[in-house]
């Protein structure tokens, strides 16, 4: 609770020096509405003031990149004049208050980012992190978030084709809810600021839902100054998503773009109308006259600052030449959407706002958008006593348990176990292009009317990040790329969502910069530039933050989806190969946590050149159709990767775990740059030669076949036993009949 004597700007989240900047910019004291506008636009969420200087170090250029960071979403060239548009965003904070609506409106927000690029949304992915399901509140959050993502995504006709879920104590108070959306557009129809042709006199048309007192908690302190208490109560803590309205927005917006009726398009998200109008004006190098009386309101008596900063959902802003206005209105009406001309572009950079005929704000548009503060916040690594050190390497801990038992504990740990309970709540097939959905290392979504498919994977490595944020981020990029390459596709570019604690704490800021460094090095090594992303800070309660968790959304391209490599063993009689080398690396492993009960040690080393070689090899082998199946070897190690391929393909195997490491180390080590592939006997010679060409170590470890699963000299089970354990683990934790 902020003390009442606090000056207004502080209660709006503005620092004293930021306030001085505003006074300097305006040459006078700001009006209340103006303070609200700066407070919203210069917030961490909108201005990236703490992260900017670090994000600048990320590689953003590449032959495939059409649109890099700074736009609503990034875009890459996928050939034939088509572009894939993608972006990831977090809605963790709202989801912690009301999981269903928080997650649902998160889907709505990221989908509008894709629409505003002029692309049709074709896929969603939902990387999530929660506290352990043993706690009732975590189950409530988990079930609510999943239902919310499905409830919204299913209703707008965009398939949810992938994602991931991890469970960890530090995420109990603050679940991590990220959503990635991918769209497809004709490259020449991309709606970007470059394509903005607006001039003075162009109109800003707000269409979609009416504006209510939504998501203005941040500036609500102004209420005391300007409003009576009653409106205080009517200010909702959370928002109700309206997926039906969103579906209409999608269709109307795409029709408007397709018919060339727009000069620009912008979604309304953080900072609402203020952000959309000032950004559109600033991008056009102009100012605007904004008439708040024209904004359709859901409630009477809204104050200027409320209308200006409301974050009501399902709204879009179109820049329209007056000669096109009637057409635009007709298209929206056909889709049952209300339109309102709320502003007009004017010469000069001034944003002039009136309500009830009175001037309520007059500020330079650019000062809101481009002249926000930037901080180089102090950083400090954790002290030596921190977990991550070779001294407590789990590989050195005594292990006398039964390997079979340990294997099933890892297989049924919620991080590893089947997420079917989740992904069956999502429509993964609408639009009819889902070549491979959940269950595949990377989802494959066909580009309509072509043989091409885009490959999508989202990965975060929170546990590694907790031990070493540099490696955590690098491994996340590596696993995402490996998931894509395992299907035979070529990794092209990434988006990301960076989930961290309070950036004003030097430790958190250090974690952040280390993560950026790791992401940078990995992206350079794999030639997968960063096309955009989102930063979510302040994920902490009472001084304890979530694990530093950069989540990577990788987009790849498969030129002929018929060449896709499945994750499961497709038939018996195939040779099974392990690609890559296994070292004694149990630091931060699933085994260490699930069986030994420790999150400790050093995460596996990551040789970026070896990883890049593996990625190239997987694509080459797929192109020569040598591979019957391919699965990246990640969480849980070789044993789990083999089990997943057996369950997915419904064929067993007999293997000998290679090397002379202790059995549990060999089986559960999470050494990087490895994959499990199966190969028809006639291709073994060629595969071996190709591996040599690429410098990828490989060892033949056994064959596929039958209902039986045999780890020679270790233990023996069946595919059915594996599936039963793998599929029922999460329903059991939720107390459901299995």
């Amino acid at each position, binding site marked *: 609770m902020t003390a009442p004597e606090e000056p207004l700007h502080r209660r709006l989240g503005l620092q004293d020096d930021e306030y001085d900047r505003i006074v300097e910019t305006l040459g006078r004291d700001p009006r209340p509405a103006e303070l609200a506008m700066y407070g919203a636009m210069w917030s961490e969420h909108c201005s990236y003031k703490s992260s900017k200087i670090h994000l600048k170090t990320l590689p953003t250029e590449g032959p495939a990149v059409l649109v890099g960071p700074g736009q609503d979403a990034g875009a890459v060239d996928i050939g034939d004049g088509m572009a894939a548009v993608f972006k990831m965003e977090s809605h963790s904070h709202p989801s912690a208050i*009301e999981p269903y609506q928080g997650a649902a409106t998160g889907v709505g927000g990221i989908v509008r980012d894709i629409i505003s690029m002029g692309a049709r949304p074709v896929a969603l992915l939902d990387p999530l992190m929660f506290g352990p399901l043993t706690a009732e509140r975590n189950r409530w959050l988990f079930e609510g978030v999943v239902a919310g993502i499905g409830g919204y995504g299913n209703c707008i006709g965009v398939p949810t084709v992938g994602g991931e879920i991890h469970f960890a104590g530090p995420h109990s108070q603050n679940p991590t809810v990220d959503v990635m959306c991918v769209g497809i557009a004709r490259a020449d129809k991309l709606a970007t600021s470059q394509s903005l042709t607006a001039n003075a006199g162009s109109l800003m048309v707000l269409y979609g839902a009416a504006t209510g007192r939504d998501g203005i908690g941040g500036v609500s302190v102004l209420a005391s100054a300007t409003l009576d208490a009653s409106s205080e109560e009517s200010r909702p803590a959370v928002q*109700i*998503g309206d997926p039906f*309205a969103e579906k209409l927005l999608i269709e109307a917006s795409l029709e408007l773009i397709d018919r060339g009726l727009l000069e620009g398009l912008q979604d309304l998200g953080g900072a609402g109308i203020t952000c959309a109008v000032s950004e559109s004006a600033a991008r056009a190098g102009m100012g605007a006259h904004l008439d708040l009386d024209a904004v359709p309101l859901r409630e009477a008596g809204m104050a200027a600052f409320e209308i200006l900063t409301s974050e009501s959902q399902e709204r879009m802003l179109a820049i329209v030449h007056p000669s096109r206005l009637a057409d635009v209105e007709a298209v929206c009406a056909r889709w049952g959407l209300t339109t309102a001309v709320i502003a007009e572009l004017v010469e000069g950079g001034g944003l002039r706002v009136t309500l009830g005929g009175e001037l309520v704000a007059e500020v330079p548009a650019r000062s809101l958008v481009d002249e926000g503060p930037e901080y180089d916040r102090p950083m400090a690594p954790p002290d030596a006593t921190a977990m991550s050190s070779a001294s407590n390497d789990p590989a050195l801990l005594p292990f006398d348990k039964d390997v079979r038992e340990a294997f099933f504990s890892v297989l049924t740990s919620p991080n590893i176990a089947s997420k079917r309970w989740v992904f069956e709540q999502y429509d993964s097939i609408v639009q009819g292009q889902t070549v491979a959905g959940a269950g595949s290392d990377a989802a494959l979504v066909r580009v309509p009317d072509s043989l091409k498919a885009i490959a999508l994977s989202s990965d975060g490595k929170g546990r590694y990040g907790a031990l070493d944020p540099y490696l955590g981020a690098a491994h996340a990029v590596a696993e995402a790329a490996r998931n894509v390459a395992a299907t035979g596709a070529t990794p092209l570019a990434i988006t990301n969502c960076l989930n961290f604690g309070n950036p004003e704490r030097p430790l958190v800021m250090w974690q952040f910069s280390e993560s950026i460094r790791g992401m940078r090095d990995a992206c350079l090594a794999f030639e997968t530039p960063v096309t955009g992303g989102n930063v979510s800070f302040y994920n902490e309660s009472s001084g304890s933050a979530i694990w530093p968790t950069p989540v990577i959304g990788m987009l790849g391209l498969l030129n002929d989806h018929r060449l896709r490599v499945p994750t499961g063993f497709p038939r018996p009689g195939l040779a099974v190969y392990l690609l890559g080398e296994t070292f004694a690396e149990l630091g931060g492993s699933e085994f260490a946590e699930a069986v030994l009960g420790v999150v400790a040690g050093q995460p596996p080393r990551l040789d970026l050149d070896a990883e890049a070689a593996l990625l190239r090899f997987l694509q080459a082998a797929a192109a020569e159709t040598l591979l019957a199946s391919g699965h990246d070897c990640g969480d849980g190690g070789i044993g789990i990767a083999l089990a997943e391929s057996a369950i997915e393909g419904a064929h067993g195997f007999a293997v000998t775990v290679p090397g002379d490491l202790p059995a549990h180390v060999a089986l559960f080590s999470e050494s990087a740059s490895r994959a499990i592939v199966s190969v028809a006997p006639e291709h073994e010679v060629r595969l071996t030669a190709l591996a040599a060409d690429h410098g990828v170590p490989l060892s033949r470890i056994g064959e596929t076949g039958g209902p039986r699963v045999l780890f020679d000299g270790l233990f023996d089970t069946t595919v059915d036993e594996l599936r039963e354990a793998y599929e029922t683990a999460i329903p059991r934790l939720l107390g459901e009949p299995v």
Partner: protein
Amino acid sequence: MRCSFEVLVSLKPGLSDPQGKAVASALPALGWTNVSGVRVGKHIALEVEAADEAAARAQVEEMAVRLLSNPVIEEFRILEAEEA
């Protein structure tokens, strides 16, 4: 004694109500142009076995807060009990 109650759960004022909105915008096409303020909520009927009505009602109150409604976004009202 056994008392039956009805709990009416509705979205808090100020929250947008997509369902109400959809119904409202469908009405004119059906010839009803004089309807406003449509809000769609839940109606829960149940019976409670308790010593007396006061006790039963108190329990329903608690059930409404903890289970039948979502206090973050909803408010509720309990209809007069009548002995079943």
